[in-house]
């Protein structure tokens, strides 16, 4: 397998990462953790601030119960790589004071509290901008900071539902269904990361930050827009669940091979031609070459079921591997319908050294999904495993803010850190 160990070039590469020198204070639950990870793996100093005792997300399933497993939350371990962690009770005055001192050193505050929560503590954007005018203050909530539903409770499922994604996922006979792994919150974090970067670039230019107000409902509407408002206003047809085929692409969907499923999608006229030729060659079907099927997908729309019969004839003769690679040699978009085991051992990902192996104590190594992008100049890297609760209290409050050992112990005893 092509995992890159922490001992090889990834960690010995001394070139700076793109966001080295930027500091992010993260007060985020699962809505914001991936956003913080994007910054941290790009070299920003992301300090995760948790209440004394640690955030609830440290116990979110699935847990690490495999060989050598520590029982920790795997989603926590994944989304908190490369961060440092301190504890702080913001509901106590001294906790708030320490927070403001940290804000003086930060470029970004990333928070996911209900709207108004930090304002009530005197720690909202309106307060903190006086401390640090260039601060970018990014909030991720279910519904945004304004509007009649700003106080509604959210979840990844609720964001997927209201945002229009669930309605168009799965089979027509089944209830609407979500994606594995909290994808809608992940996308909210992705949007917040980009919005924060746009605000940071602007702040660098003009010296003024701003409040970035990201709603997980809106980010889902944006993600699912292909079957959203623009299309519906154009053709008046409300997109629905229709299995694995896509409404505007013919042919598309899953087809059965001798040993499993492949996914096929045809959009370009040339791709249809290549597929028709293959079917003609192998199955001897003459009708498939009829010019009435040529051109963009819209030409084939009335013939979806017939074309599916032709394609099934072809795929049934082959294994998934044959259809995948031989199809791709012919420039036809066939891909396997992979399980995670196949992804973990995919030669393509191995050749690119995608997975990252990270030591997790006691000689145990955990393998992680790696870089979502490759930067030629500024390496993406996991600089450390997810931190333990308050792991960097002494380093940050002592080493950086200059609190004495006695001062730290006292804060600890009084439950402030």
């Amino acid at each position, binding site marked *: 397998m092509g995992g890159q160990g922490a001992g090889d070039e990834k960690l010995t590469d001394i070139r700076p990462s793109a966001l080295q020198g930027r500091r992010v204070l993260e007060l985020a639950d699962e809505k914001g953790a991936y956003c913080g990870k994007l910054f941290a793996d790009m070299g920003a100093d992301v300090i995760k601030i948790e209440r004394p005792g640690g955030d609830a997300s440290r116990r979110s399933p699935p847990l690490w119960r495999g060989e050598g497993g520590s029982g920790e939350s795997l989603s926590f371990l994944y989304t908190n790589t490369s961060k440092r962690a301190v504890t702080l009770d913001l509901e106590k005055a001294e906790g708030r004071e320490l927070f403001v001192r940290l804000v003086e050193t930060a470029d970004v505050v990333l928070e996911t509290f209900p709207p108004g929560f930090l304002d009530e503590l005197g720690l909202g954007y309106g307060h903190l901008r006086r401390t640090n005018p260039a601060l970018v203050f990014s909030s991720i909530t279910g519904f945004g900071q304004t509007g009649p539903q700003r106080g509604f409770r959210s979840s990844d499922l*609720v964001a997927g539902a209201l945002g229009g994604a669930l309605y168009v996922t799965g089979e027509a006979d089944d209830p609407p269904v979500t994606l594995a792994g909290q994808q809608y919150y992940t996308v909210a974090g992705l949007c917040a990361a980009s919005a924060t970067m746009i605000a940071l670039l602007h702040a660098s230019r003009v010296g003024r930050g701003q409040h970035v107000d990201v709603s997980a409902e809106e980010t889902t509407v944006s993600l699912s827009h292909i079957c959203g408002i623009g299309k519906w206003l154009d053709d008046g047809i409300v997109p629905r669940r229709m299995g694995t085929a896509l409404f505007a692409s013919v042919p598309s969907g899953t087809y059965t091979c001798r040993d499993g499923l492949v996914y096929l999608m045809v959009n370009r006229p040339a791709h249809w031609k290549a597929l028709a030729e293959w079917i003609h060659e192998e199955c001897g079907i003459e009708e498939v070459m009829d010019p009435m099927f040529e051109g963009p997908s819209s030409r084939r729309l009335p013939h979806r079921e017939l074309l599916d019969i032709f394609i099934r004839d072809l795929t049934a003769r082959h294994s998934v591997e044959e259809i995948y690679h031989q199809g791709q040699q012919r420039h036809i978009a066939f891909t396997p319908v992979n399980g*995670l085991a196949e992804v973990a051992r995919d030669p393509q990902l191995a050749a690119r050294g995608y997975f990252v192996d990270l030591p997790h104590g006691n000689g145990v190594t955990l393998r992680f999904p790696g870089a979502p992008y490759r930067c030629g100049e500024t390496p993406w890297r996991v600089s450390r495993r997810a931190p333990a609760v308050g792991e960097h209290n002494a380093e940050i409050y002592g080493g950086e803010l200059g609190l004495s050992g006695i001062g730290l112990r006292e804060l600890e005893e009084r439950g402030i850190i």
Partner: protein
Amino acid sequence: MMAVRDVEGRGGEQALAGIRVVEFSSAMAGPWIGRFMAWAGAEVVRVESAKHPDVVRQYVPPWAPELGTQPQLSPWFTDWNAGKRFVALDLSRPRAIEIARRLVGICDLVIENYSGGVVDRLGLGYEDLRAVKPDLIMLSTSGYGRDGPCSGYVTWGPNIEALSGSSRASGFPHRECTVTQFAYPDGVSALHGLFVVLAALDYRTRSGRGQFIDVSQYEATVSSMGQPMLDFLANGEEPRPMGNRASAAAPHGCFRCAGDDAWCAISVGGEEEWRSLCRVAGRPDWAADERFASLSERIENQEALDQELTRWTSCLTAYEVMESLQGAGVAAGVVQNAEDLAWRDRQLADRGFLEQIEHHKKGRVIATGVPFGLGATPGRSGAAGSAIGQDNHYVFGELLGMSAAEIEESVRAGAIETG
């Protein structure tokens, strides 16, 4: 009435003002990055050719198929390209390549998602372009990335859902493959691409250095599903698809409501929410039922729980279920479709999320908003529905400073296309 934000004439500061982008792009995964940047104030120039039209340009309106292919009318062309400038170059001609390079010379960022290796063969690869613009940032996005045995393979968004393991890990346990109708890997990889180019711009501001960035849509998609992937990598078992259920919450799912294909999603995490739900549903007996006495029992007896709950939800509209549960602090949301989003969502309307924008052919259109919530520098979408080469004169004349005679000559030589 649909509440939309009329962005015409909105002035004010633009966050990415002064940044200029060139796109050699098609479909969504590349163009969506430029769309967001244009919204935030960057000047984005898209290079096209009528000889190799974008698949989105090959749009036959379903409401008037007799019109044939309508390259300006696709609603997706609006969603992925509003606010950009459009030039037309026949890149098979050396003179067009020379003009494209000059254009790159006055830009900060190049985005490309042509099929494997095409920009390199054209002489528009990173090494060629950096010769004219030493601090250039260039992003290339493709299904599998720039190297590896499958580099160059053809994919669309749903192919990546299948490839990345998402379609098998997601959905109900009795289904083998569950995909979205919205090609979510296109969106997920474009959003990763947007973040990385913004980070590269920030780095360039501080270091003066550009760079080449390679996005594999496959890898970006696997990275965004870390939770199931890590479950497999750490625990060694293929996670069983759970449909809408959760491992630490119950009830958790989509519940049928009154009406055609009407559903409300409900997520009950803690005991307090569970008791609130029982109260709102008028079923104190559920709270007392020992099958539902704790989270682990509710998970154990989820079939029965879902059936009971459906008896309540199916008598109400999805909006009634949502409002009553949210009123008691329980996370619930209508499973909205496109029509609901436009007409029935009070929150989106109040926040003015949808934008009404100018369209060169249709007059005005409603576009999905950009969910970046930049309060001090609110973005705006420029005009939609541009023709191929619509901005030739602005870009070649005003930006590049080509004389009218020079443009004319390039048109005659077939380098610049006139649409």
